[in-house]
């Protein structure tokens, strides 16, 4: 009886934690949505398909050793990636890494660095929202 109660409590706590993370991610997306509305004429919502195209795209405008997000994150968002200095990167897929895209500071820092590396410029709010939307479904 006691064991069952403990199990239920643990499950409820985990579910709540998961919900809290999802809330954090929603808040982040809402922020980008606001920015995208202001920046993009005719913004009609984020697209996972566009996000995927961004993720898998090959760019020549960034640094030569990082032509794509997949260079470090691999082609499979559910797999761990590797930096060029050999450090393991947690998977981007939210289903595997539920803490992803919940910390605004962290997200902005890495979009900042990595879009500069891959695209040679900052990512737009639209691109960021699309990207997160794609990863949220992986």
């Amino acid at each position: 009886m006691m064991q069952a109660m403990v199990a239920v409590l643990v499950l409820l706590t985990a579910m709540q934690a998961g919900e809290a993370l999802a809330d954090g991610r929603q808040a982040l997306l809402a922020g980008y949505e606001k920015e995208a509305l202001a920046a993009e004429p005719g913004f009609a919502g984020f697209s996972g398909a566009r996000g995927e195209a961004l993720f898998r795209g090959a760019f020549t405008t960034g640094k030569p050793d990082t032509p794509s997000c997949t260079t470090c994150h691999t082609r499979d968002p559910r797999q761990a990636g590797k930096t060029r200095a050999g450090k393991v990167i947690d998977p981007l897929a939210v289903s595997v890494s539920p803490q992803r895209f919940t910390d605004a500071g962290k997200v902005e820092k890495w979009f900042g660095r990595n879009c500069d590396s891959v695209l040679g410029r900052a990512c737009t709010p639209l691109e960021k929202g699309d990207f997160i939307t794609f990863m949220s479904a992986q």
Partner: protein
Amino acid sequence: MKRAVFAALISTWVFSPVLADQGERIPPPRDPLYLKECGGCHLAFPPFFLPARSWEKLLAGLDDHFGENAALSPEVVQQLGTYLAGEAGDAEKGGRRYLRDLPPGETPLRISETPYWRHEHGEREARGMYAQRKMTTWADCAACHRGAEQGDYELED
């Protein structure tokens, strides 16, 4: 029995400098800020592998950190600076062994530019492993020193 115990103790004491000098078990950095900001892209290198002046120079040039923009807020840089100065190879608690033969006028920005490191990795074995594992940078210590993140630099056979 007593003699055996005594002999064992003496042996440990006599041989401990040799064992310690292997330098294979190194306390890994534990500062959360350092691990977060300086361990995201590469191994969070133990600060005592470089002198304080090297860390200072690295922190002053984060916007071009070996070709990457690793810029951080001034507050974070300052905090890291304090930490690294206190843990550097020439700090009071530093591991002076790692700065052996480093001229005072030199400020290496890479651990692989220190005489100690060069001595440890100069042999054919190291170069062989590098080529065999198709490595592209010496910054990936863990490629050969699998336990590096835990401070274990023992090479697996």
